[in-house]
């Protein structure tokens, strides 16, 4: 019925094994007005192959949007990129406080598809004005009519109405605006598109339309790879070839989308996936467990493995040492338990201790008390 799984399958065959991007040792921090340094992305390295969609998953505050800002070269105050390198097609771009970023990298090598297209186009300009400005920024000599013709072709190719070009942003619906912005982001056929929560504000039908369009763009070789950032795991599973799960500024696990979804190798991924609810019979009348506690304050992150305070599998070593990356650069899990138990599925029951069960007990007791109090009150 739906064609997105087949598209995703196409995408999988499309992935070639040629390296598109290598990002090394990315570190970025926010500086609070009080002068505190909050490291939001801490020494993260990722790689993407040609034709691939890499999904970045994680809860709010895990650093996934910060990672998107670094990769799209759009970090700005109070976020400061403190170090790292991007390597695309053998061209290197150093990052850091003193590094100079070539303007034309933005938009043509890496391009940003921002969160909430609502305000991404200046309210007093038409879509076509931005389209022309974007083209001219990378090709001084381009003529207005020529630029607009190219944009019109692109709109038609992707099944968008060409008259959207003449609209002011407020005249477009939310889903249409997000798609229009997607086309603008990819006008210059960038090598890599960084999509930061593009679907989060959309209804499921618009979500699906956008995802289909992104995959079609990959098929049409408009761009060579996508980094897709969202907290929505089912969306990621639909769109990605590989998924990286971030926790507290670090990558907890990275692997094939299918493998992550079916047999996660990191306790955090397992717990996160365990809390996903989808409309399938298995989820009715089954008690799903959330992760107890909340993500750490990055101003003062826990020592060792950052997940250890919430992890039922945590051992002594987890509290002291940084976990190793078990696997290779494209597929690994940063976990001592995985290292010690290769090939064993993560036991979800042990990751999340029985706190939930005791809570239900307490509830029962209290219910009785409450009932008693109620009677007394009457």
């Amino acid at each position, binding site marked *: 019925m739906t064609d997105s799984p087949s598209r995703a399958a196409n995408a999988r065959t499309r992935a070639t094994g040629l390296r598109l991007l290598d990002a090394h040792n990315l570190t970025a921090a926010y500086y609070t007005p009080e002068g505190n340094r909050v490291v939001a992305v801490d020494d993260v390295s990722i790689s993407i192959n040609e034709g691939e969609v890499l999904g970045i998953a994680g809860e709010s505050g895990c650093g996934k949007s910060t990672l998107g800002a670094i990769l799209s070269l759009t970090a700005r105050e109070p976020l400061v990129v403190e170090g790292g390198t991007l390597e695309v097609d053998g061209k290197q771009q150093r990052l850091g406080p003193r590094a100079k970023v070539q303007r*034309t990298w933005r*938009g043509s090598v890496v391009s940003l598809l921002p969160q909430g297209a*609502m*305000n991404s186009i200046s309210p*007093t300009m038409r879509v076509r004005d*931005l389209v022309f400005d974007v083209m001219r*920024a990378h090709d001084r000599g381009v003529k207005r009519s020529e630029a607009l013709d190219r944009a019109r072709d692109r709109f038609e190719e992707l099944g968008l109405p060409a008259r959207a070009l003449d609209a002011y942003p407020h005249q477009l619906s939310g889903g249409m605006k997000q798609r229009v912005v997607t086309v603008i982001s990819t006008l210059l056929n960038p090598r890599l598109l960084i999509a930061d929560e593009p679907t989060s504000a959309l209804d499921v039908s618009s979500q699906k339309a956008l995802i289909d369009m992104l995959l079609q763009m990959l098929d049409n070789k408009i761009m060579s790879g996508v980094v897709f950032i969202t907290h929505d795991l089912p969306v990621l599973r639909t769109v990605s070839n590989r998924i990286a799960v971030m926790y507290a500024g670090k990558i907890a696990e990275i692997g094939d989308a299918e493998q992550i979804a079916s047999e996660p190798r990191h306790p955090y991924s397992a717990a996160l996936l365990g809390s996903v609810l989808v409309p399938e019979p298995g989820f009715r009348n089954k008690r799903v467990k959330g992760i107890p506690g909340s993500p750490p304050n990055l101003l003062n992150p826990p020592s060792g493995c950052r997940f250890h305070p919430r992890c039922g599998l945590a051992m002594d070593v987890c509290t002291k040492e940084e976990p190793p990356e078990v696997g290779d650069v494209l597929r690994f899990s940063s976990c001592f338990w995985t290292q010690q138990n290769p090939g064993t599925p993560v036991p979800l029951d042990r990751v999340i201790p029985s706190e939930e069960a005791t809570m239900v007990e307490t509830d029962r007791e209290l219910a009785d008390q409450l009932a008693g109090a109620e009677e007394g009150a009457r």
Partner: protein
Amino acid sequence: MDFAKYLGRKAIWYVIALFVALLLNFLLPRLIPGNPVDTIVSQMARGGGASGEQMKAIYAHYMQQFGLDKPMWEQFLVYLGHLAHGNLGTSFSQYPTSVNSLVAQALPWSIAIQLPAILIGWVVGNLIGAVAAYRGGWFDKGAFVGSLFASSMPYYCLAIVLLFVVGVHFGFLPIGGGYSLGLTPNLSPSFFGDAITYWWLPFWSLVIIFVGGQAVGMRSMAIYELGSDYVNYGRGLGLGDGRIVRYIFRNAMLPQITGLALSIGGMIGGALVTELVFSYPGIGTLLFSAISTNDYPLFSSITLLITLAVLAANFCVEIAYGIIDPRIRAAHSGER
């Protein structure tokens, strides 16, 4: 159409505001205890400038003009009737000169110092504000504190300081009046050459303040726009700084243009005291003399004039905003 409806609703409000303004202008001077004409005539008599016969004629003239022997509501109608004919009445202190001609003499002078100051101040102020917001750093700090200081300085205080330092202490420019003694205002180049030396000081005293105010306003609006999503997106698409700055300006400009229109409307009453400081022969000085001689036909005509100009400017801005696509306006003014 929607626009007609919008216009109609606005017009009703402005008619009410106009009515209230007229009522205030009519009523408040009459709150002074005693019959104003008695007061005036007795004052003129004390001055000894007029004979008994003349006195009586003047008295009769004013009683008739104001309809003071009639009930209040009829007096108000008489007042409105005169206004409808564009007749502002006869001055007390410079009887029998009409108020119309006194105002007509003074008005060009006020406009001559105000309009250029507003226009130039607006352009320069917005430029400074925008550049400060965009450049940041020391330029921003200096421009901001300087502009804040300039905009907070009472305009008449700056006038006094300039008059003293430039006019009196260094003697660079003449220190009072609108033109040299002995000349009569005319359109000859020689008169302009003379008048412009008198014009510089009041002009500067206003333009500096105006630059400051505009710069502060523009800077904060531009800073606000700098934080918006489209700036970040534009950068992410590799747009040049100049291009993005143009987007910012376009959006930050709209309220500034409104401000310009309103400043022009408020022009007549905008720098009353400046004229006083420089004895400049404009509306402010006229108002001052009207107050000091209790010339209340002149006095209330000036206040009415100021009100009308401001009301008209407000109304024009509203119409302009109605013409601009309301949805653009909605998008611009944000969530509401």
